[in-house]
């Protein structure tokens, strides 16, 4: 198995979907558990912003709003340079489970590559580099 394109977690919460939905999709809710400050325009295509006290800011684009079951957005891949066009898609799915909610978060798109990078990255490499590095190590050891 290769490195993951998709990361998924499921948690059981002891609160009904409506309560969880509010925590996920309102500025007050998001600021209470996710960012330190939050703003959100809750409609497909709307913008949202999360800020953390340490400095980072994440700009979100709302994609899916199906109250109280599905909330999806895209955001930049944390750790890549600011101008990088790559974004991952995050989707929260809420299912009623007894008196509570089964919440699943899935984030996908880590394996995407911007146009041109894949080809550029893959030309000129290829052959058994590990083997050659081993030969280099032997060469240097013998020197």
């Amino acid at each position, binding site marked *: 198995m290769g490195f993951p394109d998709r990361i998924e*977690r499921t*948690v059981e919460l002891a609160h009904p979907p409506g309560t*969880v939905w509010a925590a996920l999709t309102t500025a007050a*809710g998001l600021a*209470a*558990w996710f960012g330190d400050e939050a703003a959100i325009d809750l409609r497909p295509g709307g913008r949202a912003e999360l800020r953390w006290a340490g400095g980072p800011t994440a700009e979100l684009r709302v994609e899916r709003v199906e109250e109280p079951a599905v909330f999806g957005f895209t955001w930049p891949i944390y750790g890549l340079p600011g101008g990088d066009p790559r974004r991952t898609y995050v989707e929260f799915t809420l299912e009623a489970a007894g008196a509570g909610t089964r919440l699943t978060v899935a984030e996908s798109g880590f394996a995407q590559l*911007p146009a041109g*990078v894949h080809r550029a*990255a893959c030309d000129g490499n290829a052959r058994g*580099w590990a083997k050659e590095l081993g030969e280099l190590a032997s060469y240097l050891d013998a020197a």
Partner: protein
Amino acid sequence: MPPDAEAVAGQVFAALADPTRRAILAALAAGGPATATDLAGQLPVTRQAIAKHLALLAQAGLVTAEPGERRRVRYRLRSAPMQVAQQFLAALARDWDTPLGALAGHLDRGARSPTRHGGTP
């Protein structure tokens, strides 16, 4: 992720695992294109050893040799493989467990209680 992309990332990590190659790549990143002789002046490694490392790094596509006479060939870092490797790290660095724990704590305390955040993205 396509297997060849994984191979590219693997080469980046293999390159970074060796202190001399790490120092060569760091010097090229910090100071721009340089010859083996330039690098030998900055690093505690012989020019011959640096030239061997550069040849392998070039073959792996992590640096590229600019046209020039032998011994005056300058090597330049190639960013594309590094961008592939960055994504592997991004997937490993993504933490949903902490914010989901913070969400559960927030809900359990009730909406107006003091907050404990899940950390940065």
